[in-house]
């Protein structure tokens, strides 16, 4: 029994290590995992072949990156110190912001986990600032999206996106909590005393936990990959036929940053597809500054705003959305001017 357990543990650790080592090798070897198809390559093909060639292009380079992302997301979801994180995030101290931006990205992959924690933070009197920071940063910087962004759009854009989202999250949360509406809202929910007594999580042996982690990674893959494939089919046609002149004319320069941020908002796409679509736009000529604005334009999409509205009311949603938009534009401009170009 004991040897069987040990064997199982070693096998599963080996599986996870395989992805980590392969990924490290790919990064060190500067082997690119990015799809290489250009509009010219795709346009010459028969219509039905375009998505197949495009997806094959992604699959060839992307299997390692996606496998790594799903395995690591599973491990994080399982091993993240949940109670520690919740305790600090609901403490109402400035460190709550820090915990929110440092820890939330590693586990949140599903909005049905995220929204309850957000609402919970508010109802438990943790303050609307850290709650909003968490709501903003968790989908924007989740691990899966980050890994894919690094691989598809390059580490510079990815790093800029991660840093900008982290800073924006804290500032937006803080600003909203200082507005009269934010203050009035916070007063409705007083701080509750801790009720740790009624939570006693079971401890599981390591092999069971690893197995749960891998199963969760597989579950994520099953949920996300079909959507991702459908998204890629659409993106492939987009890349093949969308006029380059339009992208070059409207998605460059300061106006391009504003337009990219505007477009990315209402367009509700899962993060991975947003990244793929971003890649297609970059190939067609979108400027680096506009790319950042595009990537940061997620927090104010419609479904997100609606579920937020039910919890905090329209005034706070409106300020939050406007601030998120302003920060997307500002980050795009700053990145464009200082680093990547407009």
């Amino acid at each position, binding site marked *: 029994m004991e040897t069987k357990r040990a064997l199982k543990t070693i096998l599963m650790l080996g599986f996870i290590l395989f992805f980590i080592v392969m990924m490290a090798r790919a990064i060190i070897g500067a082997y690119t995992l990015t799809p290489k198809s250009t509009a010219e390559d795709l346009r010459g093909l028969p219509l039905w072949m375009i998505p197949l060639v495009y997806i094959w292009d992604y699959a060839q380079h992307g299997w390692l990156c996606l496998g790594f992302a799903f395995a690591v997301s599973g491990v994080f979801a*399982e091993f993240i110190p949940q109670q520690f994180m919740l305790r600090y*995030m*609901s403490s109402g101290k400035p460190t709550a912001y820090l915990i929110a931006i440092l820890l939330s990205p590693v586990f949140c992959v599903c909005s*049905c*986990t995220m929204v309850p924690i957000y609402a919970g933070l508010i109802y*438990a009197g943790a303050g609307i600032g850290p709650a909003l920071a968490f709501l903003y940063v968790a989908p924007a910087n989740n691990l899966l999206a980050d890994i894919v962004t690094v691989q598809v759009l390059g580490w510079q854009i990815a790093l800029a996106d991660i840093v900008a989202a982290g800073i924006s999250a804290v500032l937006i949360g803080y600003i909203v909590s200082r507005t009269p509406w934010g203050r009035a809202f916070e007063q409705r929910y007083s701080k509750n005393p801790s009720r740790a007594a009624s*939570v006693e999580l*079971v401890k599981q042996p390591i092999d069971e936990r690893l197995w749960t982690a891998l199963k969760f990674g597989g579950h994520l893959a099953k*949920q996300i990959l079909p959507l991702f494939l459908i998204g890629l089919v659409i993106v492939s046609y987009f890349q093949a036929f969308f006029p380059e002149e339009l992208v070059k004319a409207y998605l460059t320069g300061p106006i391009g940053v504003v337009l990219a941020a505007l477009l990315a908002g209402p367009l509700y796409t899962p993060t991975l597809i947003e990244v793929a679509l971003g890649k297609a736009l970059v190939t067609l000529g979108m400027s680096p500054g506009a790319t950042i604005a595009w990537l940061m334009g997620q927090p104010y999409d419609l479904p997100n705003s609606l579920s937020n509205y039910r919890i905090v009311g329209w005034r706070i949603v409106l300020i939050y959305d406007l601030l998120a938009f302003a920060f997307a534009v500002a980050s795009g401009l700053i990145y464009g001017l200082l680093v990547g170009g407009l």
Partner: protein
Amino acid sequence: MKKIVAEVIGPDPPCVNCTAVKRNVEAVAKKLADEGIEVEIERRNIVSEEVIQKYGILFSPALAVNGVVKIMGKVPDVRMVERLIREAL
């Protein structure tokens, strides 16, 4: 007849994960009914004031047995659920 209360805590409307937890608990309840153990299954809304008052903020989905949260943020399989319920007897 022994009675256990199992609370499945998740968002409302339920997401895929909470439905999976509920299904596993139902399977265990059916099995234990033959041994004379009654498992009462209740669904709770994770963002209700009532749940937050009682348990604080939780990762969804969560499973509480006899008023104590045992699992959160993951879907326990049938074997795990059975072990938790037997431990609470």
